[in-house]
């Protein structure tokens, strides 16, 4: 296998993301926020398009799009006429559609649409790595510090509230952590498949875990394995990196589900 600089950077970046996405992904699974992750990720495309249109750093406009989304969602959730998944669906697909329309007006040489949608892990730079490991460490520190509160809330939100957990603040923190991870992971797996990196390793880990903590650790491990396998496939068969990583993660999930089913018989 070629171990050139870009390859090492890709590996380091991918594994860095997997280590953070695993534990955070557990909360996405426990709190059923998968659709919310999709909506955020699609909002990122709108943010990127906005950045190019306004000629400012797309990372900034993407962050702005996240904040806007979080506000819209919090505002809409209080109303009872429509279920949250319907609202999320409108927001999510609306953002994706508008993002795609906006990007179509732009010079294809300036905006690498496929790179944003499907990820371009082989172009990870040293600066990207610094962001991934710096931001990733921050996310893990916050998760660890608030672990008991977040876990109590995942078990039962009303009970957590009655026991004095600041539920609204915790919800906001989870939203922000997801935004950060999506921003960091955009280059690795792309906007369309980011949620998979959050939920598939966590779901795989569920097959083997008996405590929330082992589930978080195993999710990080399975994510790392998916990155290794996906990158290897991407290099060998020249397939796009993001889909290859997610395909590897789903393969791991299927094998573990089958193994688990056989053991239980």
């Amino acid at each position, binding site marked *: 296998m070629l171990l050139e600089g870009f390859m090492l950077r890709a590996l380091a970046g991918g594994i860095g993301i997997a280590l953070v996405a695993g534990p955070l992904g557990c909360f996405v699974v426990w709190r059923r926020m998968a659709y919310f992750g999709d909506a955020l990720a699609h909002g990122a495309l709108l943010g990127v398009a906005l950045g190019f249109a306004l000629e400012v750093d797309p990372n900034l406009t993407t962050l702005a799009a996240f904040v806007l989304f979080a506000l819209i969602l919090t505002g809409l959730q209080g109303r009872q006429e429509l279920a949250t998944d319907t609202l999320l669906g409108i927001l999510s697909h609306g953002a994706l559609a508008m993002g795609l329309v906006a990007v179509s007006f732009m010079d294809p040489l300036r905006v690498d649409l496929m790179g944003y949608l499907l990820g371009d892990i082989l172009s990870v730079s040293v600066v990207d790595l610094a962001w991934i490991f710096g931001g990733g460490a921050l996310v893990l520190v916050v998760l660890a510090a608030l672990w008991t509160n977040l876990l109590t809330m995942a*078990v039962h939100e009303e009970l957590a509230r*009655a026991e004095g957990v600041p539920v609204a603040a915790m919800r906001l923190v989870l939203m922000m952590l997801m935004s950060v991870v999506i921003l960091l992971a955009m280059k690795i797996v792309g906007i369309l498949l980011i949620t998979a990196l959050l939920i598939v390793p966590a779901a795989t880990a569920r097959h083997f875990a008996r405590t929330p903590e082992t589930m978080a650790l195993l999710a990080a491990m399975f994510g790392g394995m998916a990155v290794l396998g996906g990158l290897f496939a991407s290099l060998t068969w020249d397939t796009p990196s993001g889909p290859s990583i997610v395909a590897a993660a789903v393969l791991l999930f299927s094998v573990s589900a089958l193994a688990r089913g056989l053991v239980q018989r």
Partner: protein
Amino acid sequence: MRLAKPPPSPPPSSPQTLPGGPPLIASHGLFVEAGGNTVLSGVEMEVRPGEIVTMVGPNGGGKTTLVRALLGLQPLSGGSVTRRPGLRVGYLPQRFQVDIALPITAGRFLSLASRADAAQREEILREVGAAHLIGRMLANLSGGELQRVLLARALLKQPELLILDEPDQGVDVTGRLDLFDTIAGIRSRRGCGILLISHDLHLVMSSTDRVICLNGHVCCSGHPSSVVRHPAYIDLFGTRAASGLAVYTHEHDHTHSEAPPPEGAP
């Protein structure tokens, strides 16, 4: 005998003083509105140390809303709630269900609630008859088992007031009798006040000191045997409910055969 460490702040009132002393918690002219509807209007109620107060009433009558208001989870549109300063409350919420995706044992779930050590957790689980559940996955427990684990969790903080929102849901009739025995036992051992929501007044009757019948407002309240004869109670639940009570109060041994099928049981 129970050998719990002495609690940090004032100990639970001793059974000798029951049911007396100033109220643990009380509502004064409480109003709650939700979505333009008045859910509760002018509710006056209180729970004193060592007494079991049972709240009954039709669905949508505002029982859970009142509990949430007492806990400070529900904004009030009028009136007030007073709590004894520093009151420790244990709460068992309605419709508790743990996502199967979250792997957590009953023991770990208890450890999330407080820094009590493992021995204390086991002891409290034994008190509610759930010691054998400590290593079981929370999501795999039956309705009755889960309620006992929740009860243990509520007791971990040495509460002076227990608020139990339909602890008998998802529990069959035999299990309900056991559960209410356990709850009555907790009261007599610990002397804490208990506010209980139940659909089945007949079963909780024998261990209840006071009944509050709630349907948007307090329709009637008092000793269970007087409440069931109250016109407002009969209006709400019909004469059959009132006469059915006689069977339960006088023939405790035969509740299994004479009990109606549990409503809404799956």
